[in-house]
């Protein structure tokens, strides 16, 4: 009898908690859907072929964000090329060998670096690259974005690799495979989907960054494919549109935001396809 009551109570608690988590999800998703819908609502009507391909024009004359899309693309790719290998490599190190003092130190500094406001990264790269070059450049922008990515990717990679069951490695090691082959061929693929999440989060995070680009990549009215020149980006362009006085430009800011979110969606889908997330 007493057992029954206890059992019922446990079942009851379980039920309550389970519904609570569902409520959490519903609540946040509702807020988030509202935000996304609002962006779509404000931005959709301003999107046109011209908006996607042209360069910005003086207010009231149309124009678009083609150069900003290209600039964001170049800088994101370049930042990923710098940031992902370093971040993933550091993460693998932390997971596989990182239990001694060196690993602990790197981990702690990585966590600290994650909390550094992106504007400080911008100031850092500005002092390091822009001032000596006496010119803002797409490269400087990419470098700041890469610095923001590295610790995020490193820490997520580490967490994901740590969760790969030991039995998987031990089997291969027992067969005489060197550690690097085990890591490269067994551990990394097993953790690929998690690492991809980390990479996606990092890319998503840098895609939304304005502050570090303002001082480093600046912006440009023109199409620019050279990374030693000032380069436009979606976020800086959105910031310019949004902070100006004109309602037409405010609408363009929403439209550009919609494009940005859309692009992230596409990247996300592509990455997911290649890493075959098993939901």
């Amino acid at each position, binding site marked *: 009898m007493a057992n029954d009551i206890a059992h019922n109570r446990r079942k009851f608690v379980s039920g309550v908690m389970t519904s609570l988590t569902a409520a959490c999800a519903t609540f946040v998703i509702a807020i988030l859907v509202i935000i996304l819908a609002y962006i779509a609502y404000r931005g959709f009507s301003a999107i046109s072929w011209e908006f996607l391909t042209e360069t910005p024009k003086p207010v009231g004359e149309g124009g678009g964000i083609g150069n900003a899309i290209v600039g964001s693309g170049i800088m994101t790719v370049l930042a990923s090329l710098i940031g992902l290998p370093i971040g993933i490599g550091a993460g693998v190190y932390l997971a596989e060998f990182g239990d001694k003092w060196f690993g602990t130190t790197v981990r702690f500094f990585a966590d600290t670096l994650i909390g550094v406001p992106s504007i400080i990264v911008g100031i850092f790269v500005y002092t390091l690259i822009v001032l000596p070059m006496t*010119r803002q450049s797409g490269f400087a922008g990419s470098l700041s974005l890469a610095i923001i990515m590295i610790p995020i990717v490193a820490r997520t990679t580490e967490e994901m690799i740590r969760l790969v069951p030991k039995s998987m490695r031990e089997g291969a090691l027992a067969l005489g495979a060197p550690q690097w082959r085990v890591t490269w061929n067994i551990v990394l693929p097993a953790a690929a989907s998690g690492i991809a999440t980390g990479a996606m989060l990092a890319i998503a995070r840098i895609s939304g960054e304005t502050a570090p680009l303002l001082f480093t990549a600046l912006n440009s009215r023109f199409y620019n494919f*050279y990374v030693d020149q*000032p380069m436009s980006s979606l976020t800086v362009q959105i910031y310019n549109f949004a902070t100006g006085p004109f309602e037409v430009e405010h609408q363009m800011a929403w439209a550009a935001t919609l494009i940005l979110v859309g692009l992230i969606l596409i990247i996300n889908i592509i990455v997911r396809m290649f890493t075959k997330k098993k939901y």
Partner: protein
Amino acid sequence: MKNLKITVLFLLSVALVAAGCSPESTGSGGGPVGLQGAGASFPKPIYEKWMNEYGKIKKDIRIDYQSVGSGAGQKAILSGTADFGASDDPMKDEDLKKADGDLLHIPTVLGAVVLTYNLEGVKEPLKLTPDTIAGIYLGEIKKWNDPKLAADNEGVELPDAEISPVYRADSSGTTAVFTDFLSKTSEDFKEKVGPSKQPNWVQGVGVGAKGNDGVMGQVKNTPNTIGYVEIAFAKENKLPAALVKNKAGNFVEASIANVSAAAQGSAESMPDDMRMKITNAEGDNAYPISSYTYILAFKDQKDAAKGKALVDFLWWALHDGSQYAEKLHYAPLPDAVLKKVEAKIDTIESGGKKLRTGA
């Protein structure tokens, strides 16, 4: 995993193609000349218009301007990351000393700072005196139906609500103009706050917002607030702008003509280096919270081709370009000032050679 490697290789090759460096395009040869400007956000719409129109005439000159703020514009010209800077607030002597050469201030257009507010039911524009504005920002006038405000606004039904003033949290030229005006007209304000791009606001009074857009957003969305913004922000967003009492004792609107009048009245006293404030200016119609905005450029241009492009562009902008000003809520320079600016542009040289050679 194999797919992933292919993707990585693909991205790598894309980036390598993209990561080329630009051909040097600023030499004195026949190639296109690129000019980079950075600075104040206030004149951005007109500068963009000018650069776009000028680009249609001179196809081999690419001028870019990025609004990063007046202070950043000053830093950009001092550090050499920009070919010309732009600032609403004239540079301080100590900052000018840091410059590697003679740095010129070239006024381009005039603008106004207006007081905008969110008062339900109040239709006609509010009338404010320097004293009442100072009182609000000092926290001495706390309610909208304060007798001082009511006295200037007969017939307007002011609510019995607390005033919530909004100020700029960031350092800004707009604040410099606004506090310069109040410091000239109110001893009390001068003592407690003072003229500054970022003064010490009275503790516990009001909230701070970043940028004109921040102040505008705050005022638009919070009942009983008042804030100061550049005129375009009020006009373009259909927010009310108060009439402000000028030195002559009239309540004036921040119209283009009234802003011009403020510059006209003080044109004769403009100093040789052009750094000048025109708040609380003489003249019956002078709008008292008006100001110049400047382009900053070195008198001695290191690169002759760039220098030539800049001089020609400035000349064009101040003459043919001035027609675009009004639509974007700027007042063009009055003739008396323009004459002085022309003479100033004529002094720009490169290696001892004057750069302006006829129109």
